[in-house]
């Protein structure tokens, strides 16, 4: 096979991980003071910032108002220096619009919007550095930002990608693995109920392999949810120490 060897005979991936291992995840909540909620996450070299404003009155045209629940408004953008080749504009292209829509759908499934009729919740995410799994980093960051903003959700939304190489599902693909050809599946999971908030796959894959791939992605999401939970608890502890004084 030409190109790079995505999985060595010894079972190691390009960066030294095994097939089911995630990249190193680091995250922090409450990055910004001005926003209602904010969070930053690093999944390997993919870095994302998310801020949440709201719930607040519906901005702009009144027609968007929902009388029984809150409107979720998302914008996805990428820093112009986030990719290996410089991007000309941070958002507004087709890909970002699609991503914004996906995020909106994901969080409509998770946020208890019916608690805030006639209002709006803004979720803005920004990719600072991109190395595969942009969508999942955004979802994870936005989840933390929503928690930071104190907006009630059914569960954490955890997202992760999985790919398929030589009959082995690989979890949490980096950019080199994503571009190596083959299928990439992005999955957003509500881990406790095991409900799926969003699933997306672009390439062709046989049905028989789908279960295996979904399971690998779900397993990765569950792993991530543990990390996110840890981050939230740590943050709460820090905040409560501060407020106690």
């Amino acid at each position, binding site marked *: 096979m030409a190109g790079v060897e995505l999985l060595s005979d010894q079972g190691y991936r390009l960066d030294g991980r095994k097939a089911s291992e995630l990249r190193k995840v680091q995250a922090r909540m409450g990055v910004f003071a001005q926003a209602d909620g904010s969070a930053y996450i690093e999944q390997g070299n993919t870095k994302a910032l998310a801020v949440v404003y709201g719930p607040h009155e519906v901005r702009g045209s009144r027609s968007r108002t929902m009388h029984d629940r809150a409107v979720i408004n998302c914008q996805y*953008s990428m820093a112009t220096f986030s990719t290996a080749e410089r991007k000309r504009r941070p958002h507004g292209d087709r890909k970002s619009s699609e991503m914004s829509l996906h995020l909106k759908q994901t969080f409509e499934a998770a946020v208890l919007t019916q608690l805030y009729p006639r209002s709006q919740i803004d979720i803005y995410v*920004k990719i600072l550095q991109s190395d595969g799994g942009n969508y999942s980093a955004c979802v994870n960051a936005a989840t933390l930002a929503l928690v930071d903003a104190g907006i009630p959700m059914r569960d954490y939304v955890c997202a992760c990608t999985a790919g398929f190489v030589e009959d082995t599902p690989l979890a949490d693909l980096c950019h080199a693995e994503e571009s190596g050809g083959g299928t990439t599946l992005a999955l957003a999971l509500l881990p406790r109920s095991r409900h799926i908030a969003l699933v997306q796959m672009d390439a062709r894959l046989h049905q028989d392999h789908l279960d295996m791939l979904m399971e690998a992605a779900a397993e990765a999401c569950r792993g991530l949810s543990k990390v996110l939970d840890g981050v939230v608890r740590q943050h709460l502890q820090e905040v409560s120490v501060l407020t106690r004084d």
Partner: protein
Amino acid sequence: MASVQVSEAEKVYIMHGVRDDLRVDGRGCEDYRHMVIETDVVSNTDGSAKVSLGHSDILVGVKAEIGKPRALVPDEGYLEFFVDCSANATPEFEGRGGEELGIDLSNTLYKVFNNKHSIDLRSLCICPGEHCWVLYVDVLLLQCDGNLFDAISIAIKAALFNTRIPKVHISEDAEGGKEIELSDDPYDCVRLNVENVPCIVTLCKVGQRHVVDATLQEKACSVASLLLAVTHKGMVTCVRKMGGGSLDPESISEMTETGKRVGKALHAPLMDLLKKEEGLGKNRQKVGFLR
């Protein structure tokens, strides 16, 4: 938040404070707020810096690309500026909301930085008339809490200091065909001389006096402000009056004097800080947004 609304009573309070050289947050008129600077925060750029000034958060990334020199100056490279006023900073910037401010900022930055007084543009030339380095300086506005220009200029200076451009060789054959070859040694790179890169000092006229590093509240009390680009020698390379009101010539010269003094004083600690940070080498724990 790009701007705030302030009530009359608040205005009076702020203006009185400024008159007595004691501002609302306890600073004197020529004092900056607490500033945090970190470089090399985005590893896939050639240079990057993050600056927080009060609650203003700026991230700057520099990417070097090979381009064609401009026809008028065939032996110089150039810088390009782009300011992304992201919706992260304020929902007002959502969609195309931040575009106008972004264009205004980037045009000013281009005037201030892209000249041979601030950076040796000749050192960016690879092959006269054919190839040169284009430095794309991308500014990302993450949080606005006043005095954007000063914070951005410091971040740009830090990012340029941090910038490492890969070394290239030009191989030439008998026919005159030129081929650009990149060095395969990742350590083999060129640094920029940022000594002359100016810092921007914005002075806000509040009442009869002027302040540096105005907060959004102070800005709301001011009729007009003056932007100065000052080098480490105290040389002013750019002046621009900003804001809706008007300024009399006397206060402009007063403000220029202050600006020169403050600006000159800004460079030395900044360079010290950058060198100290670099001195930590690989062992430096990178913080970025993780606190």
